[in-house]
Protein backbone atom coordinates (compact mmCIF):
# COMPACT_ATOMS: atom_id res chain seq x y z
CA UNK A 1 0.00 0.00 0.00
CA UNK A 2 0.93 3.69 -0.20
CA UNK A 3 2.62 5.64 2.55
CA UNK A 4 0.34 6.52 5.47
CA UNK A 5 0.57 9.03 8.31
CA UNK A 6 0.72 7.29 11.69
CA UNK A 7 -0.25 9.24 14.80
CA UNK A 8 0.24 8.13 18.42
CA UNK A 9 -1.34 9.68 21.51
CA UNK A 10 -1.00 9.61 25.31
CA UNK A 11 1.09 6.68 26.64
CA UNK A 12 1.26 5.07 23.20
CA UNK A 13 3.06 8.21 22.02
CA UNK A 14 5.29 8.26 25.09
CA UNK A 15 6.32 4.59 24.77
CA UNK A 16 7.03 4.84 21.05
CA UNK A 17 8.84 8.12 21.61
CA UNK A 18 7.29 10.04 18.71
CA UNK A 19 3.81 11.37 17.97
CA UNK A 20 3.90 11.16 14.20
CA UNK A 21 5.65 9.28 11.42
CA UNK A 22 5.09 8.20 7.84
CA UNK A 23 5.30 4.53 6.98
CA UNK A 24 4.50 2.15 4.15
CA UNK A 25 3.05 -1.11 5.51
CA UNK A 26 3.52 -4.19 3.32
CA UNK A 27 0.58 -5.24 1.16
CA UNK A 28 -0.40 -8.13 3.46
CA UNK A 29 -1.25 -5.70 6.29
CA UNK A 30 -4.99 -5.36 5.71
CA UNK A 31 -6.53 -4.07 8.91
CA UNK A 32 -5.67 -2.02 12.01
CA UNK A 33 -4.81 -5.11 14.04
CA UNK A 34 -2.38 -6.21 11.32
CA UNK A 35 -0.80 -2.76 11.34
CA UNK A 36 -0.37 -2.95 15.11
CA UNK A 37 1.36 -6.36 14.83
CA UNK A 38 3.62 -5.09 12.04
CA UNK A 39 4.64 -2.04 14.12
CA UNK A 40 5.09 -4.07 17.33
CA UNK A 41 7.53 -6.33 15.48
CA UNK A 42 9.91 -3.38 15.38
CA UNK A 43 10.56 -4.07 19.07
CA UNK A 44 11.59 -1.52 21.72
CA UNK A 45 9.00 1.13 22.52
CA UNK A 46 6.75 -0.15 19.72
CA UNK A 47 6.61 -3.65 21.20
CA UNK A 48 5.99 -2.22 24.64
CA UNK A 49 3.20 0.15 23.55
CA UNK A 50 1.46 -2.24 21.19
CA UNK A 51 1.72 -5.62 22.92
CA UNK A 52 -1.78 -5.67 24.39
CA UNK A 53 -4.44 -4.82 21.81
CA UNK A 54 -7.23 -4.75 24.42
CA UNK A 55 -5.67 -1.53 25.70
CA UNK A 56 -5.63 0.11 22.26
CA UNK A 57 -8.13 2.09 20.21
CA UNK A 58 -7.78 3.43 16.68
CA UNK A 59 -9.02 6.00 14.21
CA UNK A 60 -8.73 5.73 10.42
CA UNK A 61 -8.86 9.08 8.65
CA UNK A 62 -10.06 10.60 11.92
CA UNK A 63 -12.98 8.25 12.45
CA UNK A 64 -12.98 5.89 15.44
CA UNK A 65 -12.96 2.30 14.18
CA UNK A 66 -12.72 -1.22 15.66
CA UNK A 67 -9.34 -2.93 15.30
CA UNK A 68 -10.60 -5.24 12.57
CA UNK A 69 -11.34 -2.23 10.33
CA UNK A 70 -9.67 -2.21 6.92
CA UNK A 71 -6.86 0.24 6.32
CA UNK A 72 -7.11 0.05 2.54
CA UNK A 73 -6.81 3.54 1.10
CA UNK A 74 -6.23 5.14 4.53
CA UNK A 75 -4.21 8.35 4.61
CA UNK A 76 -4.01 8.77 8.39
CA UNK A 77 -4.17 6.11 11.11
CA UNK A 78 -4.09 6.99 14.81
CA UNK A 79 -3.36 4.56 17.66
CA UNK A 80 -4.14 5.50 21.25
CA UNK A 81 -5.54 4.33 24.59
CA UNK A 82 -9.27 4.62 25.41
CA UNK A 83 -10.17 8.30 25.62
CA UNK A 84 -10.47 9.99 29.02
CA UNK A 85 -11.57 13.55 28.34
CA UNK A 86 -14.35 15.59 29.88
Amino acid at each position, binding site marked *: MAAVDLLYFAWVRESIGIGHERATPPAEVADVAGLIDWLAARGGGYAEALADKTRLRAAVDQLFVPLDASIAGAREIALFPPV*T*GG
Partner: protein
Amino acid sequence: MIRILVTEAAIDLAAELEGLERAGGGAVASFTGLVRDDGGVEELFLEHYPGATDEALAKLAAEAENRWSLAAATVIHRVGAMTPGERIVFVGTAAAHRSAALDACAFLIDRLKTDAPFWKRETRGQDARWVGERESDRHAADRWKRP
Protein backbone atom coordinates in the same frame (compact mmCIF):
# COMPACT_ATOMS: atom_id res chain seq x y z
CA MET B 1 -26.31 27.79 16.79
CA ILE B 2 -23.43 25.50 17.64
CA ARG B 3 -20.23 26.70 19.26
CA ILE B 4 -17.24 24.35 19.59
CA LEU B 5 -13.95 25.40 21.12
CA VAL B 6 -10.80 23.44 21.99
CA THR B 7 -8.47 25.83 23.73
CA GLU B 8 -5.51 26.29 26.04
CA ALA B 9 -7.15 29.42 27.50
CA ALA B 10 -9.34 29.53 30.61
CA ILE B 11 -13.09 29.06 30.06
CA ASP B 12 -15.13 32.24 30.59
CA LEU B 13 -18.28 30.79 32.11
CA ALA B 14 -20.26 34.02 32.34
CA ALA B 15 -19.63 34.93 28.70
CA GLU B 16 -20.54 31.44 27.50
CA LEU B 17 -23.78 31.34 29.46
CA GLU B 18 -24.76 34.79 28.28
CA GLY B 19 -24.23 33.64 24.70
CA LEU B 20 -26.58 30.70 25.32
CA GLU B 21 -29.16 32.94 26.98
CA ARG B 22 -29.17 35.24 23.98
CA ALA B 23 -30.08 32.30 21.71
CA GLY B 24 -33.62 32.88 22.96
CA GLY B 25 -34.61 29.42 24.15
CA GLY B 26 -35.81 30.40 27.60
CA ALA B 27 -34.19 27.36 29.26
CA VAL B 28 -30.42 27.08 29.63
CA ALA B 29 -28.60 24.10 31.15
CA SER B 30 -24.89 23.79 31.75
CA PHE B 31 -22.30 21.38 33.02
CA THR B 32 -18.79 22.35 34.10
CA GLY B 33 -16.05 19.86 34.96
CA LEU B 34 -13.20 21.05 37.15
CA VAL B 35 -9.74 19.62 37.78
CA ARG B 36 -9.94 17.70 41.03
CA ASP B 37 -7.20 17.48 43.62
CA ASP B 38 -7.74 13.66 43.83
CA GLY B 39 -5.01 12.67 46.26
CA GLY B 40 -2.49 15.40 45.60
CA VAL B 41 -2.76 16.04 41.86
CA GLU B 42 -0.52 19.02 41.09
CA GLU B 43 -0.98 19.16 37.36
CA LEU B 44 -3.50 17.76 34.93
CA PHE B 45 -2.35 17.61 31.33
CA LEU B 46 -4.91 17.25 28.57
CA GLU B 47 -3.71 15.82 25.26
CA HIS B 48 -5.95 15.68 22.22
CA TYR B 49 -6.02 14.61 18.57
CA PRO B 50 -5.96 18.03 16.90
CA GLY B 51 -7.35 17.01 13.53
CA ALA B 52 -10.25 15.01 14.97
CA THR B 53 -11.32 16.78 18.16
CA ASP B 54 -13.32 19.67 16.73
CA GLU B 55 -15.14 17.37 14.37
CA ALA B 56 -16.00 14.86 17.10
CA LEU B 57 -17.44 17.61 19.29
CA ALA B 58 -19.29 19.28 16.41
CA LYS B 59 -20.85 15.93 15.49
CA LEU B 60 -22.11 15.40 19.04
CA ALA B 61 -23.45 18.96 19.22
CA ALA B 62 -25.26 18.57 15.89
CA GLU B 63 -26.78 15.29 17.07
CA ALA B 64 -28.00 16.96 20.28
CA GLU B 65 -29.31 20.04 18.45
CA ASN B 66 -31.29 17.82 16.15
CA ARG B 67 -32.58 15.34 18.71
CA TRP B 68 -33.74 17.98 21.23
CA SER B 69 -34.49 20.91 18.87
CA LEU B 70 -31.98 23.10 20.66
CA ALA B 71 -31.76 26.84 20.16
CA ALA B 72 -28.02 26.61 20.90
CA ALA B 73 -25.31 24.22 22.08
CA THR B 74 -21.80 25.05 23.25
CA VAL B 75 -18.99 22.59 23.95
CA ILE B 76 -15.63 23.84 25.18
CA HIS B 77 -12.70 21.64 26.17
CA ARG B 78 -9.42 22.83 27.62
CA VAL B 79 -6.17 21.22 26.46
CA GLY B 80 -2.64 21.53 27.85
CA ALA B 81 -1.58 21.89 31.49
CA MET B 82 -4.04 22.78 34.26
CA THR B 83 -4.09 22.88 38.05
CA PRO B 84 -6.81 21.76 40.50
CA GLY B 85 -9.86 24.02 40.53
CA GLU B 86 -9.54 25.04 36.87
CA ARG B 87 -12.34 24.31 34.42
CA ILE B 88 -11.58 21.43 32.02
CA VAL B 89 -14.84 21.23 30.17
CA PHE B 90 -18.00 23.24 29.68
CA VAL B 91 -21.19 22.05 28.03
CA GLY B 92 -24.17 24.36 27.67
CA THR B 93 -27.53 24.05 25.93
CA ALA B 94 -30.45 26.37 25.26
CA ALA B 95 -33.94 25.19 24.38
CA ALA B 96 -37.59 26.17 24.60
CA HIS B 97 -38.24 23.50 27.23
CA ARG B 98 -36.23 22.70 30.31
CA SER B 99 -36.22 18.93 29.81
CA ALA B 100 -34.71 19.36 26.34
CA ALA B 101 -31.96 21.63 27.67
CA LEU B 102 -31.22 19.34 30.61
CA ASP B 103 -31.28 16.06 28.68
CA ALA B 104 -29.16 17.44 25.84
CA CYS B 105 -26.62 18.75 28.34
CA ALA B 106 -26.33 15.34 30.03
CA PHE B 107 -26.11 13.63 26.61
CA LEU B 108 -23.29 15.91 25.49
CA ILE B 109 -21.08 15.41 28.52
CA ASP B 110 -21.77 11.66 28.67
CA ARG B 111 -20.96 11.12 25.02
CA LEU B 112 -17.99 13.50 25.02
CA LYS B 113 -16.39 11.22 27.63
CA THR B 114 -16.37 8.26 25.25
CA ASP B 115 -16.46 9.79 21.77
CA ALA B 116 -13.98 12.67 21.78
CA PRO B 117 -10.23 12.07 21.49
CA PHE B 118 -8.88 13.58 24.72
CA TRP B 119 -6.49 11.96 27.20
CA LYS B 120 -5.72 13.03 30.77
CA ARG B 121 -2.35 12.71 32.51
CA GLU B 122 -2.15 13.42 36.23
CA THR B 123 1.07 14.49 37.92
CA ARG B 124 1.59 13.98 41.64
CA GLY B 125 5.12 14.95 42.66
CA GLN B 126 7.48 12.88 40.46
CA ASP B 127 4.72 10.52 39.43
CA ALA B 128 2.95 11.19 36.12
CA ARG B 129 0.31 8.69 35.01
CA TRP B 130 -2.30 8.52 32.26
CA VAL B 131 -5.84 8.22 33.56
CA GLY B 132 -7.50 4.91 32.73
CA GLU B 133 -10.84 4.34 31.02
CA ARG B 134 -13.84 4.26 33.33
CA GLU B 135 -16.39 1.52 32.86
CA SER B 136 -19.10 3.82 34.28
CA ASP B 137 -18.45 6.33 31.50
CA ARG B 138 -19.24 3.72 28.89
CA HIS B 139 -22.51 2.85 30.61
CA ALA B 140 -23.45 6.53 30.86
CA ALA B 141 -22.80 7.03 27.14
CA ASP B 142 -24.69 3.86 26.22
CA ARG B 143 -27.94 5.01 27.79
CA TRP B 144 -28.31 7.61 25.00
CA LYS B 145 -28.37 4.95 22.31
CA ARG B 146 -31.73 4.75 20.65
CA PRO B 147 -33.41 1.54 19.48
